[in-house]
């Protein structure tokens, strides 16, 4: 038997923009065990909810993550609205759906670039990020921010989008979509891309389910689960079908995300003509009393928002279970048996957002 050595991976590592530390126990070049450690960027956001007015906490909820910011804010608002029994205006639910899908596109395109960067394909990385700017422009034109939308609000959305702007969006996105085809073909068919992704970090469907994987990690292993099918916001009026790949390796997870981008373009084409006229928010009086757990599908997977109010302006308890947090146990399983050189790519394919996970 070869000697066992421990190689520290992170907290500072070129593929990780955020700090997570994993001790890799290796034999020769093969990883036999991975031991994570957390807590480098704990921010105490859940405790902060007990000190802030529940409406103002929306701003903090939006800033839990810099990339899936809108769905964080929206999830928090959805949980509060359920506790208070608010029925928000219909136009607001459609706008929320539109922004969720825009946020999914920009998150996945950013991730595709980061993955290309992780296996050393700089040209592809820059091509992905260049195209992502087109989506960010649409986001800025509708919400006013590039990545922090600032559009979530308890009781609706914070700003309305004029019909003239809405009518322009499909044409703007079509340009991005057409150019994206060339890039995603590279991910799908390029020789070096397939060499780095196919058969690496395989996770079986049973393991993915048992270890509580969420989002593209779960669907890349063959499980047909997508929280959007629950029909929150306006998803019940749209045709949402989970994107599933069965191979369970890094390539399958990449393909799930790539196909989800095209699905989001399709959903946006469906939702934008359906947006009804009317008010976008409602007056919120009183304070939340009771508890509720809201589930939403983020770009990275399912997120759970739990709020408990006691009838006062501050919440009793606020908890958020982010997708990265749920995807850490499957990641450790994937790392077992892989080559040391493949570790960065495997870590990247769960789309890690460590600040989200530590809150």
């Amino acid at each position, binding site marked *: 038997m070869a000697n066992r050595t421990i190689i520290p991976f992170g907290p500072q590592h070129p593929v990780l923009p955020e700090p997570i530390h994993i001790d890799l126990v290796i034999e020769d070049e093969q990883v036999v065990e991975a031991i994570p450690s957390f807590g480098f960027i704990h921010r105490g956001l859940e405790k902060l909810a007990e000190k*802030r007015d529940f409406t*103002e906490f929306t*701003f*903090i909820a939006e*800033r839990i993550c810099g990339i899936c910011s809108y769905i964080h804010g929206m999830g928090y608002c959805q949980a509060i609205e359920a506790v208070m029994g608010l029925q928000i205006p219909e136009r607001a639910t459609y706008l929320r759906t539109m922004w969720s899908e825009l946020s999914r596109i920009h998150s996945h395109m950013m991730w595709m670039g980061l993955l290309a960067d992780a296996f050393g*394909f700089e*040209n*592809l990385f*820059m*091509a992905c990020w*260049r195209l992502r*700017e087109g989506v960010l*422009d649409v986001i*800025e*034109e*509708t*919400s*006013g*921010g590039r990545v*922090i939308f*600032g559009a979530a609000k308890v009781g609706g959305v*914070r*700003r309305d989008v004029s019909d003239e*702007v809405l009518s322009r969006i499909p044409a703007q996105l079509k340009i991005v979509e057409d150019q994206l085809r*060339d*890039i995603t*073909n*590279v991910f*799908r*068919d*390029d*020789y*070096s*891309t*397939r060499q780095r992704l196919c058969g690496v970090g395989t996770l079986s469907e049973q393991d993915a389910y048992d270890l509580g994987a969420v989002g593209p990690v779960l669907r890349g292993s063959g499980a047909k689960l997508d929280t959007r099918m629950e029909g929150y916001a306006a998803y019940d009026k749209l045709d949402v079908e989970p994107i599933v790949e069965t191979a369970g390796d890094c390539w399958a997870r990449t393909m799930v995300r790539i196909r989800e981008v095209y699905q989001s373009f399709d959903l946006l084409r469906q939702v934008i003509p359906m947006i009804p006229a009317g008010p976008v928010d409602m007056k919120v009086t009183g304070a939340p009393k009771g508890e509720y757990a809201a589930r939403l599908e983020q770009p990275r997977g399912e997120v759970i928002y739990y709020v408990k109010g006691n009838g006062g302006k501050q919440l009793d308890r606020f908890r958020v279970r982010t997708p990265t947090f749920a995807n850490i146990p499957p990641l450790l399983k994937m790392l077992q048996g892989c080559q040391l050189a493949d570790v960065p790519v495997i870590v990247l394919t769960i789309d890690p957002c460590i600040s989200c996970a530590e809150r």
Partner: protein
Amino acid sequence: MKKSPFKMTKVALENLFRRPATVPYPLERKPMYPATRGHIAIDKDKCILCLICDKRCPTGAIKVDRIGKTWAIDRLSCIQCNYCVEVCPKKCLWMENLYATPTQEKLAFVVPIPYTPPTPKPKAAATPPPQRRQPPHQARRPDNAKGSAIRNRD
């Protein structure tokens, strides 16, 4: 489709012969969208120093001084959430679509406000100052109901 080592070639060649995707910044500037949240601006003539923006600002970036009669904002702390604009009762705040200019000081943007806040009413036990102007509704008080007195205050 078959896997090929030349899949990136088309994208790379296009990239090589295309104009840059970025704008040459100081010479040319990308136009801002009307909706862009750039920085908060104030109409100092309308402000009544009510302190609501100061209290509601989630990051505490806005500082209003009733005695010194100034409205100040720390541009580095402001998160452009637009909340102050929504809560301002006089609608004297709005969001400009240009980003704030760089600064080295924290409270660099201080606006003197011309509005004079009314002197607070003295408590019942204290003797009122002799030259104090009678508010109009108090003069009409005996003829009117309490509700209409409140309506006439402004």
